[in-house]
């Protein structure tokens, strides 16, 4: 297995809902006019609380300084697991589940805080730049580490530092944050970047005018319903996460649908904002899912974490996590 350390220096930011109008110019440029910026990594995730933006330094310049923008203090690097040399024939554990044991758990054991971002194409594990030596040390046994420089993967020289790092404490990880599972179902999809202009207006509507639409389309008193939408444009690839209702607004044959047309339900983690320092949250969830062999997407936002699991598995997932929760206390 290969672990690619990507060259993007990322910022994680949150835009308050009421201030979104100050940022729309920059966001539209980043999302729909990639040739006008040198930004290679952009995601926008809307939650009921805020908009979470993950963007590289080039793209960050497009955002105005404003009281509505809060930025996590660290610079983040994205890691990407590639099957590399041997193409393992078993395709069963996919997504976050696949890397739960090999990446997420060891990082959690070393108290390294991670920020997860699953897309249609792949899973990114974001770590703080300053944690990189420890990350490389932790993962070098399991992976061939490659650093991407100018688009070309070159062997990352292992720092060779072994002392000074705290020995991992291998403990059971109970689920400590409250969970909730909204009622609406989601799809993870993508589209041909060439067709992006044709659906740009719909996407803009979905991104920035959700509040207005929601009031008319869905009953606001449905407490179980969650407003969640994610758009990412990373290295030319588009990835979208939206609920079933939103998907219906797009014309046929524009969005990529899998042959099995699967739908996903969400597990939302956290009762109050999780912050960036606590580690092991992703591990708590993903290890349980991996144990049960359930595929999942995992999207961290500024305040909360979100896991997507197949609709048919939601009950067993909730069950498993609750059990774990109980075991911990």
């Amino acid at each position, binding site marked *: 297995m290969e672990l690619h350390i990507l060259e993007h220096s990322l910022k994680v930011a949150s835009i308050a809902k009421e201030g979104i109008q100050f940022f729309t110019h920059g966001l539209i440029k980043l999302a729909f006019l990639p040739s006008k910026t040198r930004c290679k990594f952009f995601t926008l995730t809307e939650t009921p609380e805020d908009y979470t933006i993950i963007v590289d330094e080039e793209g960050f310049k497009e955002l105005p300084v404003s009281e509505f923008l809060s930025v996590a203090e660290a610079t983040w690097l994205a890691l990407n697991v590639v099957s590399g040399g041997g193409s393992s024939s078993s395709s069963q554990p*996919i997504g976050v589940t696949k890397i739960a044991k090999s990446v997420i758990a060891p990082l959690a054991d070393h108290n390294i805080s991670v920020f997860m971002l699953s897309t249609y*194409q792949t899973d990114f594990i974001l770590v703080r730049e300053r944690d990189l030596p420890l990350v490389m040390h932790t993962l070098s046994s399991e992976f061939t580490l490659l650093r991407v420089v100018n688009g070309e993967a*070159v062997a990352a020289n292992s720092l060779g530092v072994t002392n000074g790092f705290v020995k991992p404490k291998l403990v059971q990880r109970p689920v400590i944050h409250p969970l909730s599972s909204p009622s609406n179902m989601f799809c993870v999809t993508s589209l041909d970047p060439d067709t992006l202009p044709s659906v740009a207006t719909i996407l803009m509507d979905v991104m920035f005018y959700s509040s207005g639409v929601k009031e008319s389309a869905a009953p606001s008193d449905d407490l179980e319903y969650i407003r969640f939408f994610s758009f990412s444009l990373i290295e030319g690839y588009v990835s979208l996460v939206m609920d079933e209702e939103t998907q219906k607004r797009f014309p046929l044959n524009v969005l990529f649908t899998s042959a099995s047309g699967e739908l996903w339900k969400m597990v939302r983690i956290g009762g109050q904002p999780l912050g960036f320092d606590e580690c092991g949250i992703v591990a708590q969830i993903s290890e349980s899912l991996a144990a049960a062999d359930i*595929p999942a997407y995992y999207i961290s936002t500024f305040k909360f974490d979100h896991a997507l699991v197949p609709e048919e598995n939601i009950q067993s997932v909730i069950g498993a996590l609750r059990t774990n929760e109980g075991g911990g206390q």
Partner: protein
Amino acid sequence: MSGSKPDILWSPHHVDRYVICDSELSLYRIESVGNSEAKAGALRLSEETTATLLAINSDTPYMKCVAWYPKHEPECLLAVGQANGRIVLTSLGQSHNSKCKDLMGKEFVPKHARQCNTLAWNPVDSNWLAAGLDKHRADFSVLIWDISSKFTPDASVTTDKIRLSAGDTDAGLVVTKPLYELGQNDACLSLCWLPRDQKLLLAGMHRNLAIFDLRNTSQKMFVNTKAIQGVTVDPHFHDRVASFFEGQVAIWDLRKFEKPVLTLTEQPKPLTKVAWCPTRTGLLATLTRDSNIIRLYDMQHTPTPIGDETEPTIIERNVQPCENHIASFAWHPSSQNRMVVVTPNRSMTDFTVFERISLAWSSTGSLMWACGRHLYECTEERNASSVEKDISTKMRQRAQSRYGHDTEQVWRNYLLAGGDDPQLKSLWYTLYFMKRYTEDLEQKPLVNKLPLVYSGIKNIVKSSSGTVESWCCWNGSDRQADVIRYHSDERCLALQLCGWIKRGPEIDVEPFLQSLEAEREWERAAAVALFNLDIRRSIQILNKGASAEKGDLNLNVVAMALSGYTDEKNSLWREMCSSLRLQLNNPHLCVMFAFLTSEPGSYDGVLYESSMAVRDRVAFACMFLSDSQLPRYIEKLASEMKEAGNLEGILLTGLTKDGVDLMESYVDRTGDVQTASFCMLKGSPGEVVKDSRVQCWIENYRNLLDAWRFWHKRAEFDIHRSKLDPSSKPLAQVFVSCNFCGKSISYSCSAMPHQGRGFSQYGVSGSPTKSKVTSCPGCRKPLPRCALCLMNMGTPVSSCPGAGKSDEKVDLSKDKKLAQLNNWFTWCHNCRHGGHTGHMLSWFRDHTECPVSACTCKCMQLDTTGNLVPLDTV
């Protein structure tokens, strides 16, 4: 192809069909103009060809890539890769074909939708179709489909989960299970099957090039690189692959896959297509975005002497098939260097890349050029004279006849040069006379005029002093002639240089007259006799000339006229002669009468008769012009000669800077560096030889000899040159030094006798002389061993007879004196192995590699010129 940009695909089996694909597929047939003149709707592609639209297929939207079925049957079956990753089989104008019908409309659907970037049919097992898709987090990007497989609902996938759109559920038309899945969680941007084995697939993945081996799918060979787009195998060289990234093309050798064997110069705009020419080896065409030129790279493998490290020669060329930007192009599969290009608005041009012409001109004047697969030899029409007249031919012949090498009878060089050029004759005689005079002087103790001889008559007469004037009488009579003759040592010397008189103080032209008679130069002899005031002798010569075999009887008439000479100023004879003489064809006869009829002291009729030899005119001037007239005349004549580059003028200028000026205009006029080199080397004072122009002629002449492979002649010339110009002697180029003490092994010849004694004293070896030869004379350690015979090397020649051995030298025959070259040692500069020359030569007659075990150096091949034979041996 996405959107409006059309691509073009040539039919693999019908050389006249191709498909243009943008939003739909259009099949065209290409024909020559003659066949399709009458047809309507034929599109003009070039002056000779048109294209006719045969069929259009617009059944498949969202096309991303198309691949043409590689086998004959079913013909015109196309696989179309769509934006959602589905692959559809379709066809053009083949509705009647039942075999095709089964396959038509068949779809291959990946588990997760994403763009299909590339398609490649397996050329051997043509049921296999490889598709390269974009990345998906939980899916594979390289899927190999078997187009003959039937749709079988996967038991593990529950039916309700398969949400195929309504039309797709036609059983048998949708396949969801690929034969192979490769490249998990990766993207595939380009694919091609490798001709080395039908189960090898080369794929341009997200950040690497990978070779998948379907015999063992858990293994793959890969190399990290950015150049992952448009992988394509050279059809002429199956291990050579091209791929590109943005503006840069990388060429890979699959046998050495770690890094590109070369990267081509980066182009400013991103590349869109790279294709090897199927009809011509090593020709790669590249196209960039928004460009109307196609850049060609011609990769030629020239045998390079130093191993594999050197890069092949690449010649870059741009061609512009049409005015507009080019969207895509396709090479014609069989017609040489031909392609069809298509512009974004679908206009097409048939274009043939004109082959580079490489031209070679041999040193012997023949001309050859290569164009495509043709080699032309250009021979001049049998107009032999123009070739033979060419100076290069002449110089070559002269070099073969050892022209310039006769240092004793210098004038003979004129004969060696062919004996038909009066200027060369004059030149070599001048040089001969100069040499003879200096030799005379050398025998005398007083050597004061030596430099003067070579500085030419111009300088000689300048220094003239003590001239004696005398009124002369006609020979054989007491009659006072009406002329004044001048005498001085310098004038005498000048006459000698002109060849009129021999050495010594006597002014006796009789030997000269006799030599002219012997050469049947009757008129000239008569004129010289007359100028020496001997009318009788002159008449006698003319009579002799008239009566000689094939003689001109008119000479008798001239003799008659001459005999009527009278010095009466107003005589009829004088009047008639001065006017009628102009009608005489022979210049010598003409000047004779001019002399007789001229006023004393003004001999313009003689002096400015340009068809008379310069030496005769100068000799005449030296006899009859006063000290004030003579230098002026000589000066004028010399500058005329210099202007004209006439070698006769060397008589006047000598081998001085003036002479070099004259020679310069001669070389400018004729290109004869050979004569110039030899001539200037004769200038023994050596000053002129240092002139940069002279050095340039000499170097050019040497290069010329080398180009003709007249190496022996060149070596002879160098020897000749170093004799005359010792400063040109090259320094010793090579020393063989001992491995142990570092001294040259030939260095201490003189010290050898002592060493020899030393050896015998210590009793190290039986024969002291033997040990000398094969060991270092400095430290007595043995010399290296010959790689073949394993004997220590060393040749008797290194113990060349020293001063003390002069008594031995006497009885050594020539063969023994010079050691056999076979015994000398030689070595390879690359691997540093060596041995006896004879052994080495015989080894390399049958082998290419070094005789030392485990040394793979191809010593003999490193020396490309070593295998050439000089042309001037025999």
